């Protein structure tokens, strides 16, 4: 594609094409979008974050990431669509415009680039990072069990061959540590949304403990609003609740850490499940998935904007 308008959002793309798209978006919108490299993956790929900002210094911010589990291709594809949506709707959609006039949005589309590359070239079903584990032939860590929130507790595996291997220590994966360092140094994130697929859920902390978060009532009611907005487009039904009550106990998870860092509006999505394809969601489902998810994202971002803390 010559420009981001002609990028084919209705198909899956290898990492080089997504990275080229990001650069195009930055070049086309220099006053709104910039690219920050927050670190390198184990294999040396840049960890790119798109920053959408209309100015100001260290404004309150919203984080969105997609693709931390590499085989969940609809998430990276949706993230690409979100990026374009933000630039096209700024100045048109009053709610998004109001948000961006006061806050920044950070979007990491390919959160696990080594894994994503591997899904395109070696193993379509790869989920973890690609760092070797000493003393084991099995490669990789589940980056959604690697965070310092109940790390090592139930709901994660100590076996390097498991799909939910937590890693040798919290933040052992550069893909995780880079976000940790960035969030800590920024110190002004107000919402953090981590996007997975598939099973149609919108979840809030905690996953590692049954103790409810102190903001449970507000997070629950906002989740309900978000999934109601999502369903208004195609009728897609989501479940919602805390991770431990809605799925199962999972320790070392992303949003448990972000919530414990003081980011109240911490959510994780599980995108579409048609009941037929699992991780191999057909490409014609990308745009409908992204469109309906955008409505839920807007609900969370708008609430964050209107309820400063």
């Amino acid at each position: 594609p010559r420009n981001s308008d002609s990028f084919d959002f209705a198909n899956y793309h290898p990492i080089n094409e997504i990275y080229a798209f990001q650069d195009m978006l930055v070049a086309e919108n220099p006053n709104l979008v910039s690219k920050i490299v927050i670190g390198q993956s184990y294999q040396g790929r840049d960890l790119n974050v798109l920053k959408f900002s209309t100015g100001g210094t260290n404004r309150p911010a919203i984080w969105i990431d997609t693709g931390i589990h590499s085989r969940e291709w609809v998430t990276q594809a949706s993230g690409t669509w979100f990026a374009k949506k933000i630039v096209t709707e700024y100045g048109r959609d009053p709610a998004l415009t109001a948000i961006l006039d006061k806050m920044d949005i950070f979007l990491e589309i390919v959160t696990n680039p080594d894994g994503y590359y591997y899904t395109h070239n070696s193993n379509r079903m790869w989920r973890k990072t690609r760092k070797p584990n000493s003393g084991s032939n099995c490669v990789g860590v589940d980056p959604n069990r690697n965070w310092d929130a109940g790390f090592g507790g139930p709901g994660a595996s100590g076996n390097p061959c498991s799909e939910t291997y937590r890693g040798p220590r919290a933040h052992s994966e550069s893909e995780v540590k880079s976000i940790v360092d960035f969030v800590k140094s920024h110190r002004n994130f107000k919402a953090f949304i981590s996007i997975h697929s598939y099973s149609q859920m919108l979840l809030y902390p905690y996953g590692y403990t049954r103790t409810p978060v102190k903001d449970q009532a507000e997070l629950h009611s906002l989740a309900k609003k978000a999934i109601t907005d999502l369903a208004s487009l195609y009728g897609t039904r989501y479940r919602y609740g805390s991770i431990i009550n809605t799925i199962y106990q999972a320790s070392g998870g992303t949003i448990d850490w972000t919530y414990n860092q003081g980011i109240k509006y911490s959510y994780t999505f599980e995108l579409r499940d048609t009941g037929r394809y699992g991780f191999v969601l057909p490409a014609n489902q990308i745009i409908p998935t992204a469109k309906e998810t955008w409505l839920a994202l807007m609900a969370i971002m708008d609430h964050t904007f209107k309820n400063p803390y």
Partner: protein
Amino acid sequence: KETFEGHQVLRIVAKDEGQLSLIKALEDMSEFELDFWRGVTDVSTPVDIRVPFHSLQSVKIHLEGQDIEYSVMIEDLQAMLDKEQEEMVSAARRPE
């Protein structure tokens, strides 16, 4: 490149908590080399498991022996991945 010829994805539905525990126990049966696409949650939520071809018969016999209901969500995973790849290639050629 790893292929998934003959791998199936089974959608399993537990009737009760007892069956749920039996499905959960499959996670520890490393000899089957199962890949849980959707893990065990509650009775009302299906569990999806990718089963390699070499384990299909054993896993199905195991489930049927426990009277656990399942259906085949994906008949041949590799066929689906081949289709996905074809679509990507043809989409990439389209602008030319």
